[in-house]
Each structure stands twice: as C-alpha cells, then as structure tokens.
C-alpha cells in the first residue's frame, strides 16, 4: 500500500471509528443544550456584571427595618466556613482602610477595568478585606464599584482583569441619594455575584461567590454592622455618608436557601450610646 492510499484509507477508517460522528442533536440533547444556554445567560459576564440580584435590583429610598440585635463584629470566621470557596480564604469581617495612594490607584484600576470614562466620580468607599480591595466611586451621573484581588490593583490594562479575580459594576443611572434620618441607614443596593478564580474552569467549582450591600447613612451613624444570613457579622465601611460591605457567600440555589436569606443591620451612633438596631 503506498503512502497516499494508506492515508486515504486511514482517514476513511478513522471516520468510521469516530465515537462522535457528526449528527444532529436528539430532542433530549437539544433540550439540555437549551437549558444550559439559559443557565449560562443567568450568570454574570464581565461586561454585564450586575446579574443575579437576590432582591429587587434597586430599591429607591426604601427605609430598612432591621431586626438584628447589637453584637460584636470582632469574631474572626474563616471564609471557608462562610462559603465563597478558597478564593476568599483571606477575607476578614472587619475592613482595613486604604492609604491615600492606594485609594486613587484602586479607583483608577476600577475605572480602567470597567472601561468607563472619567465623569468626575470621586471615591466614596475604599477598603481592604484580606487580599481583596473594594472601591466605590460615585459622581452625579454615574456610580461604579469594583471588588478585585489586591495584586490586580495598579494593572490598568482591562485585559488583565478579564479572567479572574475581578468583579465590577457600573451604572449611569445611580439611585437618587436618599436622606436617611440622622440615626438611620438606607440600603440602596444589594447583590450576589461571583468572581472567576484561576486554575479551574469547571462550573461551580471555583467561583468565588459573594454578597454585597451598599447604602447611605444618617449624619449620626458612625458604624454599620451587617448580620448576614450565613451567620457571621460583617463590619461595613462607613465614609462620606455611605456604607458598603461584602462577604463570602455561596452560589444562590434551591439547595442552599440560607445564603439567599435576609440580612439585618445594627448601627453605631456618634453619641457613644449603646449601639442600636434599626435603620
């Protein structure tokens, strides 16, 4: 057999032996393909990151009526127990403020990653929890926030952030600033999201799921504690009349309803009196 004949026959033989000869999908396969498609669209993509709101996506000026009791937020709870996978192993319930230089760097990275023009937003919240930096920037016409791994801060090429360790959201229609009573807070945004983490590509295995909240504080409020449905207390960052917090969570699903449960707040007031609950 000459080489050409051999190759031709080999090609024919291999195609006969193909374990997956090209076919059309069966009805069942088609149905599963459609279901997978729908499931994928329900997850956030990088350019459209505000997916999976667990509550109405935006609640304008709705006063909260928190139920939680005052509690110390000091206990360190390993993030692994909280969910979120190993991505957030370094997470801390108490935020660290960023140095001024780090603040502007984080804001610049956030803006570059979201690929949004500078519209005069200023940084209202910037904090670090373990190896993760969170920054909230707000202006009259726009608002955005980013959660990113510390080592991504300072890398302003958006392509650097596409794959892993970055989550951001941006809107040109921010919630109109509410005016909470001096000892109250108003939550304006809450969401669940996930950060793709490096190495493993398989669905669900290595998504760092987290929950985040943002809102406004009254003039006397100096501290906000979130009592999360996963059982830990999270100290929010409070600055510039705003508060924000995030915590490792799990992928919301029918199998872990607890992560979709409600959270409550406790506020601390400037007069030094006992922390009081209530929005």
């Amino acid at each position, binding site marked *: 057999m000459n*080489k050409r004949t051999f190759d031709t026959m080999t090609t024919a033989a*291999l195609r006969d*032996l193909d374990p*997956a000869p090209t076919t059309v999908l069966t009805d069942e396969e088609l149905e599963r*393909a459609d279901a997978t*498609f729908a499931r994928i669209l329900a997850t956030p*993509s990088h*350019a459209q990151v505000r997916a999976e709101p667990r509550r109405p996506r935006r609640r304008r000026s709705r006063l909260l009526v928190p139920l939680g009791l005052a509690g110390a937020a000091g206990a360190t709870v390993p993030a692994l127990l909280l969910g979120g996978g190993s991505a957030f192993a370094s997470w801390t319930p108490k935020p660290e403020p960023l140095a001024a230089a780090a603040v502007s760097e984080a804001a610049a990275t956030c803006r570059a990653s979201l690929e949004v023009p500078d519209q005069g937003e200023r940084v209202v919240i910037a904090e670090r929890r373990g190896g993760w930096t969170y920054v909230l920037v707000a202006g009259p016409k726009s608002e955005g926030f980013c959660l990113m791994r510390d080592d991504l801060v300072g890398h302003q090429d958006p392509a650097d952030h*596409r794959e892993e360790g970055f989550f951001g959201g941006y809107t040109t229609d921010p919630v109109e600033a509410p005016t909470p009573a001096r000892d109250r807070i108003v939550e304006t945004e809450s969401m669940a999201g996930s950060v793709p983490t490096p190495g493993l*590509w398989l669905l669900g295995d290595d998504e760092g799921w987290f929950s985040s909240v943002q809102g406004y504080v009254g003039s006397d409020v100096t501290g906000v504690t979130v009592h999360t449905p996963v059982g830990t207390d999270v100290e929010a960052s409070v600055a510039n009349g705003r508060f924000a917090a995030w915590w490792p969570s799990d992928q919301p699903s029918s199998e872990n309803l607890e992560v979709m449960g409600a959270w409550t707040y406790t506020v601390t007031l400037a007069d030094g009196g006992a922390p009081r609950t209530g929005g």
Partner: protein
Amino acid sequence: MDSTTSSRQEREQRFREIYDAAYVDLLGFVRRRVHPTHAEDVVGDVMLVAWRRLDEVPADLSAARAWLFGVARKTLQNARRRDNRHDAVAVRLAEVRHGPADAGQHPDLVAHRVDIAAAWPLLSALHQEAIALSVLDGLTAPEAAAVLGISPTAFRLRLSRARRTLRRHVDSTTAGDRLPGHLASDRSPR
C-alpha cells in the same frame, strides 16, 4: 438604565450565534475525549467560559469553534491530576463493530479499520491528538495549532510524525500474523 443594558442584548445575540453554530461540533470534540456521560457537562463549562470571555472569542465562526476546542482541551487537562495538566489529551475511537454495513464496503477498507483500531491505542496521546484534530475534529492546520497553542508549522510536523508512527504500528501489527480467513469471518453480516 445601565450603560451595559444595550450591549447586553448584543452580547446575548452574539453568544447565541456562537452557541448554535458550534454546539454540535464541540460536543463531538469532547465526546472523543471523555466518557460520553460527562460530555455535555464539559460543553456547558466551555460555553460558560465563552460567555465570560466573549470579547476574546474570534469573530469568524470557524475560528471561534477552534477557540472553543482549545478551551475544552484546557478544561479536560485541568480536570485531571495536576501533574498531568500539560499532557496531550488522549482521543478514543469507537469499538470496531461488524455488521451489515460492512457488507457494502471494500474488504480492504474493513480490514484496514480493524488494523487502525488495533494500532490506535499504541499511539501516544500527543499523536492521537494531532491526527484527531485534523481528521475527526475537522480543523485546518492553523486552527489545530491554535487549539494546541503551537505554531502551524510545528503542528504539521507533529501530524506527519503521528501519521508515520501510526503506519509503523499498523505495519508491525499486521505483518504476517493475521490468520487467513479471520477477517472474512469477522466481516460476514450477522
């Protein structure tokens, strides 16, 4: 409204195009490399990556398909033990089946199929992969090279070595040790 709302629709539409155009081929690609019961899950994972990284997916649908194959290959590598991560991904062939369909085929082709099936497992995963990408997955040399992350020239070289090795295995397994009549009885319709 969010600035992303209008582009969300465009993204969905583009993703739908890729999904519809490549799903069957991607499923085939994966089925050649994993147990069939896992194939759809892997395809789902790969498509999720495509959705996440839609901006990186080539505009041309054929190139997009090759891109998806590359992601699938990485997914399969990553799903294995860490120390084997960078190995080639072996390709399986179907069992040789003898049936009425053989009757209409040239006996040499039927015999050759048996030979190929016997020689295939002797090939390294690297060589199986090169041949499968070209013959079964239907990729051009540049596309196959992209899947493997090597240059088209390197791929052509690998493919030609793989074909030579396959031929050597076929020649050595069929040299004189086949009993006369063995194939004749094997290929009779049942």
